[in-house]
């Protein structure tokens, strides 16, 4: 319970403050675009290669197992694609983004905190939440579902290519969307949006709290990435369980 509070408490408070900052000061379009480009350009290589590697690993394992028990690897293809789209890709993309986005956001904001720049902004009549948190929050909320789509495609295509070229079987089943329905897609996007909202808030909360020089920055980054990854694991589990409970 206390662990839950530790991970979600500060981000929840920051969420409320960010919403009220958005209501009062709106969203700075240009700053948000800058953050979008930042997240997109810095995370997409990591996420595409990570998920492509993961797709290859999964079919390698599936190949070894199906040869032992059922025989034909292509039967698991459509199920693999659904599982990838609904469960694996959202989870892994969220975890990778938690590392990439969480680490850089917290490092940047924590360095500003210990250099008194956040307080300087306040005395310049600027709202630090509106200046720093809002653009990152909105950008990550938009970017994460998009990165999830890219990641799913990377994993599926790499699985198909590996099956076709390395195992000499027909790989087209691994990009077969026969089992995919609207709820699968919905489940994936709910996970993406929630993690996308959570990651920058968790990171910014740790960054804003940093006090007292360079050691505080290191601690803030460590804590932020841990919070962000554990939070994403939790969000993922809760959403998956909720979709299972309502029976879709």
């Amino acid at each position: 319970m206390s662990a839950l509070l530790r991970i979600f408490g500060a981000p929840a408070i920051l969420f409320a403050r960010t919403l009220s900052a958005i209501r009062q000061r709106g969203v700075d379009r240009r700053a948000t675009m800058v953050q979008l480009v930042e997240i997109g350009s810095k995370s997409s290589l990591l996420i595409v290669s990570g998920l492509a590697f993961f797709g290859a690993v999964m079919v390698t394992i599936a190949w070894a197992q199906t040869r032992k028990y059922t025989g034909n690897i292509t039967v698991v293809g459509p199920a693999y694609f659904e599982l990838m789209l609904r469960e694996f890709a959202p989870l892994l993309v969220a975890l990778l983004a938690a590392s990439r986005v969480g680490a850089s956001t917290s490092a940047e904001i924590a360095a500003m905190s210990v250099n008194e720049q956040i307080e300087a902004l306040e005395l310049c009549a600027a709202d630090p939440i509106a200046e720093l948190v809002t653009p990152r929050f909105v950008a990550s909320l938009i970017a994460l579902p998009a990165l999830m789509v890219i990641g799913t495609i990377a994993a599926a295509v790499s699985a198909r290519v590996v099956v076709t070229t390395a195992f000499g079987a027909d790989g087209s089943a691994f990009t077969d969307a026969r089992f995919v329905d609207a709820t699968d897609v919905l489940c994936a996007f709910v996970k993406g949006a929630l993690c996308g909202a959570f990651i920058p808030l968790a990171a910014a909360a740790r960054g804003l709290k940093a006090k007292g020089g360079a050691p505080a920055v290191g601690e803030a980054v460590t804590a932020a990435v841990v919070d962000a990854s554990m939070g994403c694991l939790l969000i993922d589990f809760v959403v998956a369980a909720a979709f299972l409970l309502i029976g879709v």
Partner: protein
Amino acid sequence: MIRALGAFGLGVARLTGALALVLARTTLNLPRLDRRELFRSIVLFGYRSLPLALMAATLIGSTVVLQAGVYAVKFGARLYTGWAAGYALTREFGPLLLGLVMAARIGARNAAELALLNVNGQIEGLRGISLDPFRILVAPRVVGSAIAITCLGSVTFLVAVCFEAVSSYFSLGLPLRVFFDSYQDMLRVGDLVGGLTKTLAFGLAIALVSTVAGLRAKGGAVGVGQAAASAVVLSCAAIFSLDLLLTPFLTRLFG
């Protein structure tokens, strides 16, 4: 474009060089590791991360059952849930997800600490009084965090499997005995060894990458933050790459 590629290639080459250097100097220092520092890093990285690893284990276990279980039911293979979940956990998800969480916890912390020593000039200072910083600071950390992550991995597997059993009991109504029977029948020692090999590899990668990131840090608070951040990201990249390289090899070896 070409220039960007060139810079990327140069960066990769530099990183590989630095990794090789740290690995080589750690290996050379293995026989005369500073015992106290080794013990300290095992406690710091291993014992202190235990609550986090346990929490991750429960989550990973329950999530894998949810994912595997639904499909086992769909394809009428409910009885195999134990095997499927156990196999997926030990061979792929356990090491991978634990690796990603530990990249955050241990990688970032190790990099931040070394970066701090570096930025404050303390590493240079050790050289100044003709002590080898590698023997005293770096090698024990590399060995310590690799040991810590492997131990955490074994504990995590155990806890996660128990949670899988419990959560498949609740979510799929699968009796615990059936779960463990199918687990026992079809899962072999090789699977466990395969999983632990991956965990060890990931642990070593996190230790090396974060050490290099920490030692390269420059310039105050900003530098420390960047070192920690790049340690996490590079560790994740290393984990996914190693997973790809090791899996075909391990599947051939252990089936």
